């Protein structure tokens, strides 16, 4: 079975190579039969990679430790679930998995476009297959999952305990789905450049793909944060770690792209910009894969130094960048803007500012992430920049973006009149002032937190008003009840209202981030029966009493579990546990935190140390002194809630729109939109 997997891998590579050549040649000389052959090759690559992936999973389930990859990431005791997800637990498997997902998406693209966009398809298929061929070359040459050890170990090394977590198993696939889905709009952009068809067709035809990519990437990033929060055990969810940053980079440019294409669709501007954004989003996706997989930069979860892979990826990345830049230069005459910016007070300007800030944030994050390499190359001295750097740059950018989130969707196109501004912004500004003042009075003095909540109130109000106006108008015109009108409003204009829902989710996330300003932390070494207290920023007093210590031997670990009784404001509020786990297979210790979640704050309990762990297991000292770290993390639950709302909003925007809901272009010399949709009424 597993031998078939390796054979299939080689066939996939040959098919991808053949298909890439056939597609480009066929497109160039107009040979439709070659293009069709390339499209069949796409299906073939997908089928072969499915076989390869199943073979890898089979080798995990069959405990075939003669394979280096299986021996490195599994052992006999490992749960079935983690054996299946072993496919993407390590570098070699994840590269196969990456290619599998891309082949799947490529097959869907070929199928979707079997009778449309034919002028694009040769180069789209060619580009997708070049990327596939690259990944498969890396897999067979330097990172082969079927590489065998010189001997057969009796058991494998097991999976790193910190990766044995639900979120960690779905986090990489979500990210990879996002990274690979961005390849589709990238391929269409390359094809548009090569074929010279540079109107908005490549954008509209890949809009859903971009949204899909963004959806997965957003989910992947949030899953990663959840994993860090429950598993790493320091109470945070984001550390500006190189690998985290890597996934954020394509998200930033991808988000900019989602917005800037609207300007091209409506006003024929930013054509070069859009091409550059999607090219860089894809390049950054490759870069992120490479950074995670090469361990080039020291990182808490970097996958070991593997410089051979680093050079190969760097070469591919440089080649792609050069080719893309040359293509844009070659087509620069066809990428001229049809309109010009007219006023700072216009939707175009708000979108441009949004784009500029997203790209600036991307550069800042990229710079900070690569700085150890840059400084080492330039001065021979490795210097890193820590979280303060990233926070200092990105918090102000985030706050301006938060304001633009409210302004962008409702300010007039071309040039806003004072009447438009007054009409749209009086209430939101009033709400911002009100919320800011209320928080000030209740003692909030942290500037960034105050700004986040005031700007959040501003933006939330604009969103609510938009929904309210649209619903009211619809109820009036169509004679529907409010509830019905509300549902229809979203249904008939999914892209717009789905987008608003994403915005609302992001505002909630931002407020969750701001909660960090009021984190509370306490530490104490306790004997059984002793207690400690913390006061939360919401005014609750938590009293935690260390009750008991227990332990048991599981198949692959020894667990030491402390039970802690919680009282909130003097009333009993249940028990919490926090654990230390000693893994037998890998000689590692990990902490398992206890989290007590409320709608507004988390009580986060870490077992930081046990005085005499051996005494517990041997029975000589069953209830030793234990050290606890207790954190109150206000508003962290809002981050997960906001993330969920963002995902729902994206899915709504993704859903196929009702017919005839395509956007109307704003005419060049007429200030008002011609569309008669009630929710479009402005000024």
């Amino acid at each position: 079975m597993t031998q078939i997997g390796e054979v299939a891998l080689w066939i996939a590579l040959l098919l991808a190579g053949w298909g890439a050549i056939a597609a480009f040649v066929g497109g160039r000389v107009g040979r439709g039969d070659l293009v069709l052959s390339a499209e069949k090759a796409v299906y073939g690559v997908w089928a072969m990679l499915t076989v390869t992936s199943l073979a890898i999973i089979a080798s995990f389930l069959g405990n075939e430790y003669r394979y280096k990859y299986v021996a490195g990431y599994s052992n006999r005791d490992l749960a079935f679930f983690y054996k299946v997800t072993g496919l993407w637990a390590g570098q070699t498997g994840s590269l196969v998995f990456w290619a599998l997902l891309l082949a799947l998406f490529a097959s869907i693209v070929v199928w979707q476009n079997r009778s449309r966009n034919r002028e694009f398809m040769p180069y789209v298929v060619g580009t997708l297959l070049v990327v596939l061929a690259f990944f498969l070359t890396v897999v067979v040459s330097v990172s082969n999952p079927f590489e065998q050890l010189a001997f057969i170990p009796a058991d494998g090394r097991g999976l790193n305990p910190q990766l044995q977590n639900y979120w960690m198993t779905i986090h990489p696939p979500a990210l990879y789905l996002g990274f690979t889905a961005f390849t589709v709009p990238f391929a269409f952009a390359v094809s548009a450049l090569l074929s010279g068809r540079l109107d908005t067709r490549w954008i509209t035809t890949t809009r859903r793909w971009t949204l899909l990519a963004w959806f997965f990437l957003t989910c992947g990033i949030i899953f990663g944060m959840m994993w860090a929060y429950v598993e790493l055990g320091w109470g945070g969810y984001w550390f500006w770690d190189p690998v985290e940053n890597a996934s954020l980079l394509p998200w930033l440019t991808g988000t900019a792209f989602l917005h800037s294409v609207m300007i091209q669709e409506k006003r024929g501007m930013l054509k070069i910009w859009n091409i550059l954004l999607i090219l860089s989003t894809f390049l950054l996706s490759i870069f992120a894969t490479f950074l995670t997989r090469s361990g080039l930069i020291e990182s808490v979860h970097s996958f070991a130094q593997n410089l051979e892979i680093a050079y190969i990826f760097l070469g591919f990345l440089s080649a792609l960048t050069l080719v893309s830049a040359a293509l844009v230069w070659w087509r620069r005459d066809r990428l001229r803007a049809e309109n010009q910016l007219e006023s700072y007070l216009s939707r175009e300007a708000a979108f441009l500012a949004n784009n500029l800030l997203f790209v600036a944030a991307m550069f800042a994050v990229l710079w900070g992430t690569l700085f150890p390499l840059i400084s080492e190359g330039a001065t021979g001295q490795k210097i890193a920049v820590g979280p303060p750097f990233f926070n200092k740059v990105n918090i102000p950018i985030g706050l301006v973006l938060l304001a633009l989130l409210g302004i962008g969707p409702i300010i007039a196109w071309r040039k806003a009149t004072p009447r438009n501004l007054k009409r749209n912004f009086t209430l939101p500004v009033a709400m911002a002032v009100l919320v800011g003042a209320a928080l000030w009075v209740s003692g909030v003095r942290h500037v960034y937190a105050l700004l986040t909540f005031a700007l959040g109130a501003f933006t939330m109000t604009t969103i609510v008003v938009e929904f309210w106006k649209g619903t009211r108008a619809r109820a009036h015109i169509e004679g529907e009840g409010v509830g019905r009108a509300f549902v229809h409003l979203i249904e008939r204009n999914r892209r717009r209202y789905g987008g608003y829902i994403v915005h609302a989710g992001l505002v909630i996330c931002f407020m969750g981030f701001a909660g960090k300003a009021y984190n509370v932390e306490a530490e104490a070494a306790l004997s059984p029966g002793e207690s400690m207290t913390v006061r939360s920023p919401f005014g609750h007093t938590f009293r935690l009493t260390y009750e008991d210590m227990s332990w048991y031997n599981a198949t692959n670990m020894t667990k030491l579990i402390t039970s802690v009784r919680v009282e909130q404001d003097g009333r009993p509020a249940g028990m919490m546990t926090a654990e230390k786990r000693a893994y037998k297979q890998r000689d590692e210790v990990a902490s398992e935190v206890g989290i007590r979640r409320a709608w507004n704050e988390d009580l986060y309990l870490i077992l930081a140390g046990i005085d005499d762990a051996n005494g517990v297991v041997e029975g000589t000292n069953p209830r030793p002194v234990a050290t606890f770290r207790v954190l109150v993390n206000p508003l962290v639950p809002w981050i997960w809630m906001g993330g969920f709302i963002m995902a729902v909003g994206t899915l709504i925007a993704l859903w196929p729109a009702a017919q005839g809901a395509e956007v109307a272009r704003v005419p060049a010399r007429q200030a008002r939109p011609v569309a008669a949709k009630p929710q479009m009424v402005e000024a």
Partner: protein
Amino acid sequence: MKKQRKFLVGAVAVLGVVGYLMVTGMRDSMVYYLTPSELVAKTTADPSFREMGVKVGGRVAAGTVSYDQRTLDLRFDVVDIADGGKTRFPVHYQGPLPDTFEEERDVVVEGRFTEGGVFEATTVLTKCGSRYEAVEEDFLK
């Protein structure tokens, strides 16, 4: 095109502010990666280097670890891995003992090297074991 110039000014202003934040942010959070012998050499050559944030990668010297469970007071000596243990200095850290901390382990300590020759650490990270990649040598043992 003239009209577009005023928008260029706006864009340049935005990028200028971001650039300013980056430069000042760098100054506040730069951390040098050093080995114990590099740190000693640098502070001997330039005493003001003590003000810089540093991350030092070394090994916990055997027989030097003392940890008070009650006060969470950790003291140990760190030695240079490369120079055969010639360079060493004491490290002081206040906080819970990291999970995999033990003698002879490689650690990264972040903090400042004080006048008294003691390294006051704000974080202590254990390096081994956090590697997710399998190493073939592990099987050959």
